[in-house]
């Protein structure tokens, strides 16, 4: 019963992943698929795998996906234009082939009762997993972690860029501002926000200076519509 419900939810979410227009919606459907899988693990008496599936896949990896998608663009949707010639045809052929193989294979399997679950989970699911991981499969386990660390370091090396000039601290910036003021009289403090002393406080209303003239620097350059004058007040 629980399998039927979970399978339905998972399959619907997987279809959503395929047909969603926005990348974020696709990523969300994938999250639902992952959580559905985790629930199925839980019903199959594998509590550790259940928790780890959610922590690792949903919590870390998919969050990273979401992060990248959100940073790349909020409203971008996939283009339907082919970039590799013949990709659609090949993908359809291979997909149908895989589906046919799977249906043929799974259709021939006969499902008997589960065996060996109680002996595999004897003394606790977590304890037995730890036993196996740190005795029989310890080399594979360590090799996997080495591989992951190598990949992480490789990514860092590829993305790393040497800084050529030293980073300016807050002290340096403050000293530079004061020096600029002494040299050219450039205003020291923060710019006045729009609308200061004026009759309106909307973003495109310039602030009024003490003598009643308008400070164009108080209006963001984009709103000023090209009136980007460097430093001079009208």
């Amino acid at each position, binding site marked *: 019963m629980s399998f039927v419900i979970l399978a339905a939810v998972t399959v619907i979410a997987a279809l959503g992943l395929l047909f969603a227009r*926005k990348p*974020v*919606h696709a990523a*969300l459907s994938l*999250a639902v698929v992952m*959580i559905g899988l*985790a629930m199925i693990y839980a019903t199959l008496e594998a*509590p*550790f795998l*259940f*928790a*780890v599936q*959610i*922590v690792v896949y*949903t*919590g*870390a990896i998919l*969050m990273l996906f*979401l*992060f990248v998608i*959100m*940073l790349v663009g*909020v409203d971008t949707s996939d283009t339907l234009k082919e970039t590799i010639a013949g990709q659609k045809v090949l993908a359809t052929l291979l997909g149908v082939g895989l589906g046919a193989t799977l249906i043929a294979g799974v259709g021939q399997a006969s499902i008997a009762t589960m065996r060996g679950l109680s002996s595999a989970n004897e003394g*606790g*699911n*977590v304890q037995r997993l730890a036993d196996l991981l740190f005795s029989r499969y310890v080399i594979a386990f360590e090799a996997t972690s080495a591989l992951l660390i190598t990949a992480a370091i490789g990514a860092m090396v590829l993305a790393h860029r040497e800084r050529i000039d030293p980073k300016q601290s807050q002290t340096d910036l403050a000293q530079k501002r*004061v020096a600029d*003021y*002494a040299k050219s009289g450039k205003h*020291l403090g923060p710019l006045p926000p729009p609308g200061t002393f004026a009759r309106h406080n909307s973003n495109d209303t310039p602030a009024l200076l003490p003598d009643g003239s308008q400070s164009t620097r108080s209006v963001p350059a984009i709103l000023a519509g090209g009136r980007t004058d460097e430093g001079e007040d009208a």
Partner: protein
Amino acid sequence: MNGLEQFGQDPWWIIAIKVLLVFVVCVVLTLFNIWWERKVVARMQHRIGPNRHGPFGLLQSLADGVKLALKEDLTPEKADKIVFVTAPILACVPAFVTFSVIPFGPEVNLFGVRTPLQLTDMPVAVLFVMAIASIGIYGIVLGGWASGSTYSLLGGLRSSAQMISYEVSMGLALVTVFLMAGSLSTSQIVAAQEDWWFGALLLPSFLIYCISMVGETNRAPFDLPEAEGELVGGFHTEYSSLKFALFFLAEYINMATVSALATTLFLGGWRAPLGLGTLWAGANEGYWPVLWFFLKMFFFIWIFIWLRGTLPRLRYDQFMSLGWKILLPASLAWIVVVAVIKMAAIEGGFSPNWVLFGFGLAVTAVVVLGFLNRLPEKEAQVSTPTGGFPTPALPQGGAVRGAAQPLVFGPPPTANGVRILPSPEEAK
């Protein structure tokens, strides 16, 4: 019955009562914590705080909740409607779910049925809390994204980066607890702390957990996702009415959750504090443990409030480097130490408790002393009365002219309440 077998035996109506109790406890705790926070912060700022509604203003949060629910519910035009509505629910539901594995007490008699004061437990209960909490982050991230506003997006991004970073050090701080308890289930971890609280045995882990739980819940001084000066309201800038209330509820329940988890994992859970159990056998039986549990939990919540009332917000890069460059390596090193000491104790046949306690105390003392040593000494403020750029010269005769005379406390008032002040000559 001992161990995990005692769970899953309840009749359905006991389970229903427990679910209801967990829900009610979460909601009432939130209302109480909001009032308590406002009251304590007010005291710290020499104000009175809420005092109008109910005794001591206790009903203030309830009134605020009703007000929030009656406000207009706005949805921005650019918002992604489905995700925008789902996000607050996604933030709120996991917050409630995590409370289901928190043990409030031992086996008690609940309406004639012997049952543990805990909704359920599982072999991976603590991992379950971490997993569900990581689903809760989705609510915040998606809320930030779906609002279609820059402030919200930045707040959501910050919050997810922050929670992922601090979840790592939090998880590593928990590893030593698992090592010592030999289990991941909350009831077993409480049972393992019968003699020694893990907060004393694993002091460095406890401190790392305490720091990362503040980061994990987006509370001051780590409340960068809702930095008012920079991001308006952060991820919930565009939310109003009940949707905003759900986010608010989730934040306060999360605060209670991490406090309850800290109590369970490090301060002995529902066990009576300070060896009270040895003096008075009944302290660890019946419903008394609920009192100890909530006292310990409120201790953590009070620390949350204290931090908020005291510390300024961290800069983002400092905050990230604290998480990744200090807390993470420190917890890794401490895990190795604990594993080595425990293994040596098993091989050598001695109890690791005093060794761990001494080692942890020494490490913590060294770190704290080193930190105090690094603080810059306060230099006396040097005034430059001669003046120079950009400070103008001070006026002749000091900073302030016409200042009041120094305050002099005269003799006590006479019988009729008249105070006879000394003349200026006498005062000199």
